[in-house]
């Protein structure tokens, strides 16, 4: 079964995905049980930069956000190099960035808050939000890569 899976999806990394997912879940659990907050990155980033009125104290939001690149850096430095491939053109980063910023604030969350925290909480709002952003992500890539 594993052989069939790797034949079907040679580019997939299921074990690394599961391991990284466990770390992400632990991080979100620490935030919930330690600080009583959702580890929602769009909200915490907005809070850290003074773009949100609600949320934890700004120092808490800033420290969480600063931890993200620190943690990624530590893995790349001490475990294994982490390849990242960005779009070559600037336009997808600029248009995508504005839509992600506006949309996550309007919709009160992103992949971390609605996806990781909300789905595991069985929150109806988060289930609807996750279905919608996944659906529109699938549709956008289908349109851009295969129809236009």
């Amino acid at each position, binding site marked *: 079964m594993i052989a069939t899976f790797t034949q079907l999806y040679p580019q*997939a990394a299921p074990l690394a995905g599961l391991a990284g997912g466990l770390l992400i879940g632990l991080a979100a659990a620490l935030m919930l049980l330690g*600080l009583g907050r959702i580890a929602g990155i769009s909200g915490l980033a907005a809070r850290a930069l003074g773009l949100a009125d609600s949320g934890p104290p700004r120092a808490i939001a800033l420290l969480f956000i600063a931890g993200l690149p620190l943690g990624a850096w530590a893995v790349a430095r001490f475990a294994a190099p982490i390849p990242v491939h960005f779009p070559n053109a600037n336009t997808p980063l600029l248009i995508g960035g504005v839509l*992600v910023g506006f949309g996550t604030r309007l919709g009160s969350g992103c992949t971390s808050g609605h996806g990781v925290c909300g789905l595991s909480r069985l929150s109806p709002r988060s289930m609807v939000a996750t279905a919608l952003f996944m659906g529109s992500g699938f549709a956008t890539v289908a349109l851009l890569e295969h129809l236009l």
Partner: protein
Amino acid sequence: MKARLLALASGMLFGAGLAVSGMVDPHRVHAFLDLFGHWDPTLAFVMGGAMLPMALAWRWRAKSQKPWAAETFSLPATTGLDRKLAAGAVLFGIGWGISGLCPGPAIADLALNPARAGLFIAAMLIGMALHRLSRL
């Protein structure tokens, strides 16, 4: 002090998880969203892996009086669907599909490709500021 250390530790663990899982690579996320191309299901395993500790954490939370390092639990409502939630999620998904990036990986990528991640984050902050100005 304890609260600040917990916030930093949680952010670092989250960033490490994004790196270990490969989710810091916009190409891998784009490949997950590309159902009709060379589909890469890795993101589904990441979500599955994250559900395990969080499902336990929600059970623990139900039995807790208060968090370890805060006075109260401050959690958002789970019910009440509205147009803002729906429109915001759809717009976010479009931007996610165009770029292969959502906020967490983009911020973690400041350590791995600061110029490209920085450009995306600058645009993302403009989007967040536009939302604030729009008073929606």
